[in-house]
Each structure stands twice: as C-alpha cells, then as structure tokens.
C-alpha cells in the first residue's frame, strides 16, 4: 500500500464520523522505485491531506517532508517534488495494519493489501 492510498482511505465503519486518517501500524515497509511524473504530483498536490501524508511518511521511516502544509509555489522545486514523489508513491506498507482513529478497530494489511471488509455489526 502506497501512502497515496492511505491518504485516500477512511474508516468505513457505520457511525464513525472522524475516520481519517487511519493510524498506521508498521510491521514491514518496502521501497519500490517508480517513474518520476511531475504532472501527476502537481495534479495530486491539492487533493492530498498534507499533515496525514507527512505523519504517515514519518511513521514509515521517511521524515523528509515539511510538517506544515507547503505553499503551492514549492511545486516549482524539483527537490520538493522528488521528496513528495518518494513519500507518496515509493514507500509501501507491506505488512501491518490501519487503525480507525475513532474506534481503534484494526484493518490488517497483508502483502501490501489493506482489508477493509467489515463485520456484519459494523455496516
């Protein structure tokens, strides 16, 4: 699971109001190189919840992102884009869990795939 996916995922349990961001429990992180695509990054920048990304990235062992929401002018900086690229697309949570911030319910992540299936009493 890339952090882009983490940034798009919320707890889907019935009744949960504040299901974002899911807390990450890390067992294993892997890195996979991805072609650098500045247009994609510029497109995504406004859609990303920056704090969730920066925090998640830190938990995954990469603390290079600014904590504060950067001004859109940083998109002109190649150095910034490279870091954004690495955090968003190249870090994968391979094993671990995502935890609902409101209920503490754990959604397991195995082989890089989060399992968001709910029990009957949660839908």
């Amino acid at each position, binding site marked *: *699971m*890339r952090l*882009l*996916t983490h*940034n*798009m*995922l*919320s*707890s*889907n349990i019935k009744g949960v109001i504040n*299901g*974002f961001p899911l807390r990450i429990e890390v067992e294993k992180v892997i890195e*996979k190189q*991805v*072609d650098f*695509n500045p*247009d*994609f990054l510029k*497109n*995504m920048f406004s*859609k990303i*919840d920056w704090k969730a990304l920066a925090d998640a990235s830190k938990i995954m062992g990469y603390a290079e992102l600014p904590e504060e929401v950067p001004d859109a002018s940083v998109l002109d900086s190649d150095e910034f884009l490279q870091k954004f690229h690495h955090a968003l697309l190249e870090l994968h949570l391979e094993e671990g869990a995502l935890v609902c911030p409101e209920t503490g319910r754990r959604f397991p992540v195995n*082989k*890089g*795939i*989060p*399992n*968001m*299936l*709910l029990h009957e009493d949660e*839908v």
Partner: protein
Amino acid sequence: MSVIWDAKGSFKIFDDMPPRIAQIRLVSSHPQVYAPCDDSYALVDALLADRKKLIDHHPTICMEVGSGSGYVITSLALILKSESNSPHFFATDVNPHATLVTRDTLEAHEVHAELLTTNITSGLEKRLAGMVDVMVVNPPYVPTPEEEVGNGGLSAAWAGGENGRAVIDKILPVADNLLSEKGWLYMLFLAANDPLQICLEMRDRGYGSKIVVQRSTEEETLHVIKFWRESENQMEGSEGGSTPKSGSQKGWNYIFSQLSRLTFRETRQ
C-alpha cells in the same frame, strides 16, 4: 518489436505493437477466483476499441471494481502505460483471494495498481470522490435468487440477485460519486440486466451512454456500455455531432434503438 525511421533519419523503437494487453499465460489463478472468460474479454476489447480515446483522455486516476484475476486492470494499465505520464490505478475486490491473484497478475506484467479488499470501494468514497477519470467494472451479473448474493468466494463473482442487478445497482451510485467531471465508466451487462433501463437511470443522473462492444455467445448477450457526464461541455471523445446537444441526442436515439431491439428479441425467446 518494430523500428520506425522518421524523415530526419532518427528512429524510434516500439516495443509493443499491436498494443499489449494482459497475457493469459501470465494471469495468475486460484480455485476461488473468477478466471478470465468471455465477459472479461469483451470488456478488454471495449478498452482496446477506445484505446486512442483513452490515451488522449489523459486520466490521472483509473480504477477497477471487482478485479478478480486482474486480467482487466492489468490490460488497462498496459494500454495506458507511458514512460513519463502513466496514470495511477486502484483495484478492489470483495474476495481476498482475488486481490492477491490480481497482485500477482499485475506483477507478472510489470505494472502496478493499488489493491484493496473491500465491498465495492468502501473506505475510498469520502476522499476519492470526484477524482476517478476512468472506471471499469465487470460486475456479478447473473440473475440468481437474492440469497446467493454476497456469499463470498467464487459465487460472489457471478451471483447478481434478481435480474442480476443486486450488485450493479449498488455500484452505479458509487461510480457517480467517484467519477471526476471528465470521468468515464465502462461497465459490462447482460441483456437480462435490462441495460436500456440502466442507461435511462444514468441519464437521469446526467450521463450519456453508448454501447462500445456487443457480443452474443451461445448462452448470453453481453454489452459493454460507456457512460460519461453530459452536464457540462464534455463530449465523449470525438463522438457526437457539431453541437453537444444534437450529438448526444443522436447517440441517445441510437443506443435506444439498439437496446430496445435486443430487449425485444430476448423477451420473445
């Protein structure tokens, strides 16, 4: 592989002409996971028929719901693969074996999609709303007793409840929520699903529609229908006439006549 020389004497090497799609021998499998079948091929044929339009569409985010073996999402990823500007792909399935098999199929073709084991797209609906530029779905479409729907494993691959519409009718509003302003949905239906009625329903939500592929096998008649938002200026690719209104009206009359003829034929049988 082919080498093409241009007028200036420089050359380009094209690795994969004709366009690459997933290769059956590289598609992974599992006894509990739906293997590629006529419906899967029909959906990929529709994507191939629209290949140029898809490339010109420059999607940022693409997604498949119910990826099964991964044959379709892998093919879409190969069709849209480009060195500098590949889109980002998501694929979901309610069957955990299926998302694992999809992962292996993608890897065998050296493409990537973010996978999620979930019901339709549950978990993504809030944050991904309005961001999906291309969505593809080969849903469970076979008419079955309602109790058979959602039983997991292989039966979830086809069991569609009354008229085969149980899961389809849940996916349509989700697609409407996730699709971007320029979003396209390619979805496969059986004649028994009453695709004409589905198109009418989607028209009420502001979508134009057209049949991209229509195929009759011994057992079933399959349609792949493409939907696009018609509200603003979006024209479906280069489809349509001189003005959006008359163009879409023409398209609408066409799909209406196609589908009503089919429905008519089927009900007489």
